């Protein structure tokens, strides 16, 4: 598991899905499973910006980029590659 993936999972479990006792499958849909909701998403965006030093443009806050831990990881990797 990459460090990006681990950090995202930890943040979600600690801050957004408080009380979730099971592990999060990296490919499970975070919205249909109720782990994330649209109110929590902006907190996750802020975390990503601060933790990984990438900017998340307002228009990037879409389902494709955030529906699973894997998707978020890919998105972050993509943004990091652009920064370099």
């Amino acid at each position: 598991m990459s460090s990006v993936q681990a950090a995202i999972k930890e943040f979600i479990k600690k801050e957004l899905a408080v009380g979730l006792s099971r592990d999060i499958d990296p490919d499970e849909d975070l919205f249909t499973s109720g782990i994330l909701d649209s109110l929590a998403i902006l907190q996750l965006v802020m975390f990503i910006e601060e933790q990984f030093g990438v900017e998340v443009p307002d228009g990037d806050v879409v389902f494709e980029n955030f529906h699973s831990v894997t998707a978020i990881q890919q998105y972050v990797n993509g943004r990091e590659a652009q920064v370099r």
Partner: protein
Amino acid sequence: MNKQESRTGRVIIIGGGPAGSALGCYLSKMNIPNLILESNHHPRPHVGESMVMSTIRVFEDIGFLQTMEECGFVHKYGASWFEVKGRESSIRFADFPEEGISQPYTYHVERGEFDHKLLMHARSLGSEVYQGVRAKQVVFEGNQAVGVEVDLGGESVTLSADLIVDASGRNTLLGRQLKMRKNDPIFNQYAVHTWFEDVDRGQSETADYIHIYFLPVERGWAWLIPISDRVSSIGVVAERDQLRQFHGDADGFFNEYVKSNRALEQAMAGARQLHPFKTEGDYSYVMDRFVGDGWLLVGDASRFVDPIFSSGVNIALYGAKFAADAIQDAFDKHDFSSDVLSPFEERTRQGVAIWYEFIRLYYKLLPLFTHFIRSEKYRAGIHRLLQGEVYDRAEAPVLDAMRKYIATVESNESHLLRGQLASIPIDDLPLPE
């Protein structure tokens, strides 16, 4: 009699609430004779109990800050918002100190006492104050306001003045008389409120903050304002249409909405109601004009906007401050026409328009507001607005950022916040480059 000879050299202020009393203070300090007519006998109850930081400047101007401390009003160090599920986001005024404000807090007040003390302060500075005197109407000669007709022991008497100020609050005396009142096309809210004991104000750090609760209906919110160690003011605001579901039953309306926010429900679990509920309708309005020949409107008598950001007393006090400048100018020029008074109208309109724009963008996409107050990039800008520091739109780029973000969400079908967009219209607000 020519115009010059008919001059009385004085101003009559209708209403001894914060707008009228503060104006009396400013005018007396400028040596402009003024008379305040208050229909009630203070102290009397009034809603609108929480203030923003910039009111401190006005209290300093008129030498009232010491009285605020002596009265022992609750110190307000910040504000907290609670989402429906209970998550709290807060701001602390000390994090963004404003130049010229020497203390890190403002106040929550019991309005009966506050309004009374401010009126007495105006008297001590030189205002002539009459309580229990009801202004019936403003008397005109042509378009020129020349006096106020009052009821004195059952007889109508006209008191004359060079300038009449309507500070009659939501009573909007002159607005009704001249048929200038327009109800807001967007907001038609209804409020139910009263005082409670034994309200749980939550964690100690934010316990004395104003608590604002989101409700799961558009333009709905609730307040918790600490009035003393013991007493809290609680109010529920929602669109008037919602009241129909409760067949006009204010208690049912109140209790149902209290249950709809987890944090509010928790705060009220052991609360004991102290007085019967009070209600406020016809919520938001604006007058066509704020000035005319020989008259002007200040505070709620000119405009009322949803008080979700505790803007009411602030608008009243700054309205008084700006009105005093315009009145001094009028006395200097011996000209009380609307031309001379109109800079006052522009200044106040601009100030209230900023609150109004902020309120609309806030409701349009609620999660954005909590995001902005948590975000390092926008926090400072939101703070300045919330502290009531902005009377010039050019100093509020954060509103442009909110507007742009909303446009992004509106134009992007798969944006994750799309489901959170409210129906409130904002298309007239220009989209920044």
